[in-house]
């Protein structure tokens, strides 16, 4: 594997009370790769995303982005006693780093959500434009007094370009939530791209789509990856999507990594098949 991954998780464990949702997960995404994270429902995939993006502070482990640690954690306080994961002592002497989600986005990691989270009072255009806010250099005074017109214009132009690319320009002034489901998903991707990320995390981008839409989405994901020089980590249940479009796959079950490798390797792995289909007792 590559020496310089863009994202690397090392022994990440997330424990809620007594429940270990993600257990000692290590994975990496190399520049320019599309990596899929698969697993049955409740396997801890979205929790892993939340640990990367700062929504949750993991209980233990390290997340590195472009070689720099962005999240460092070890069991603290009450968790010290009830910690049920592995490698508890590994990071005990390291200073824990617990950034808020916005700092992580500013580093260059953007995401979409499993249950679409568009801003419901805003139009399609405003949804994408608002995501550009974090890149704006104007302060609240120059913004109020309209002193940064050049920047405002540039933000609006970039937004329109993103909408055009997603074929959403004709819905520009419609309420985001009035769009059909599939288009809302694309809008969420456009909104994530507006933050100019290096790494894009997609949480079930093809959920609720038919096979043709799924195929189109896959092609589109490859296309934006090339165009913006992105790396992509995605969660997906559509196996044809995962097999066709991802370079590598990590399969997890009950929070633990059970298998990783190319689509061919993973799809033939007995543990993965068992995890998805279930193993009967007498076998």
């Amino acid at each position: 594997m590559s020496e310089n991954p863009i994202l690397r998780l090392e022994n990440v464990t997330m424990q809620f009370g007594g429940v270990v949702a993600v257990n000692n997960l290590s994975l990496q995404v190399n520049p320019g790769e599309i990596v899929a994270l698969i697993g049955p429902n409740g396997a801890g995939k979205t929790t892993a995303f939340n640990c990367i993006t700062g929504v949750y502070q993991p209980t233990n482990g390290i997340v590195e982005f472009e070689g720099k640690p962005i999240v460092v954690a070890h069991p603290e306080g009450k968790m010290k006693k009830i910690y049920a994961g592995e490698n508890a002592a590994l990071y005990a002497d390291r200073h824990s780093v617990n950034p808020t989600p916005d700092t992580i986005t500013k580093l260059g990691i953007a995401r979409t959500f499993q249950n679409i989270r568009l801003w419901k009072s805003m139009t399609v255009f405003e949804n994408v434009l608002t995501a550009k806010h974090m890149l704006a250099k104007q302060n609240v005074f120059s913004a109020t007094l309209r002193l940064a017109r050049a920047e405002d214009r540039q933000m609006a132009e970039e937004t329109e370009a993103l909408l055009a690319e997603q074929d959403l320009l004709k819905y520009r002034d419609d309420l985001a939530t009035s769009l059909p489901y599939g288009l809302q998903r694309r809008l969420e991707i456009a909104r994530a791209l507006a933050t100019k990320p290096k790494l894009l995390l997609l949480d079930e981008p093809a959920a609720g789509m038919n096979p043709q839409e799924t195929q189109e989405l896959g092609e589109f994901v490859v296309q934006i990856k090339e165009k913006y020089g992105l790396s992509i980590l995605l969660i997906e249940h559509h196996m044809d999507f995962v097999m066709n479009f991802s370079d590598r796959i990590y399969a997890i079950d009950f929070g633990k990594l059970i298998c990783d490798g190319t689509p061919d390797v993973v799809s033939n792995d007995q543990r993965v098949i068992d995890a998805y289909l279930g193993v009967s007792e007498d076998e």
Partner: protein
Amino acid sequence: MEALLPYIINGVSAGGQYALIAIGYTLVYGILRLINFAHGDVFMVAGLVMVYTTSSMPLYVSIPIVLICTVVLGFAIERVAYKPLRSAPRMSLMISAIGVSYLIQNLAFYITGGLPKPVLNPIPWVSETITILGATTKRVTLVTPVLTILLVFVLVYFIKNTKIGMGMRAASRDFETARLMGVKINTVISFTFIVGSFLAAVGSILYFTNYPSVAITSGSLPGLRAFIAAVFGGIGSIPGAVVGAFIIGLCEEMIKGLGYSTFSDAFTFALLIIVLCVKPTGLFGEKVTDKV
């Protein structure tokens, strides 16, 4: 210590009264996640009804009337102002509560003519002056904490051992699931308001026996203090509300005793803010997390 003794006695008594109001807040918040801003005004209305009825009727008629009126008012508020907003955002519910509080105060102003109503015929026996350990006070000061504890025990027993009490506990744990599991949620909520109002009425009778008059704003401050007591004890928890109420009642009277009357309310609010920032779940509350 000698000088502080009357304040301690008063503090325990005030604590008992706050506890009776605080339970109403804590029960409602536990189920609806609503700060029932109108609860303090329900308390005030009970006081007004008491003033009006005790001056013209014998005690055994007037006290039941006070209790019934207050319970009906609490029930009506829920049905009219909160039930239609069951699926609305929490902010609308809170605004509705503030609106109800505003309405009750203004209606009370209109009916009473805006002047504080003097408590002319306080309930005999409990309003008699007695002397304990050299401190002079009314008998109600001693009756209050005892009656409070008694009522709390009855309530806790009731919630633990009856079907509707079980419904209340289920609804406060998970409103939606309770509804799906066949708990008659509207009955449970109405019942919660009835219990809360009943206790507030008892609290009101005790409270205003100790005061010279009932004004239309008489309910706001005891109401807020009781709410703070509920938060302090951990909102949703009955023992929490009672303990919180006694602590706040005592602290307030002690501060008055030390000569800082101006700050007795400021202290209560400061306590609230500290609790919210350090341990928002209060003394006995449970933690709730949002799902992403």
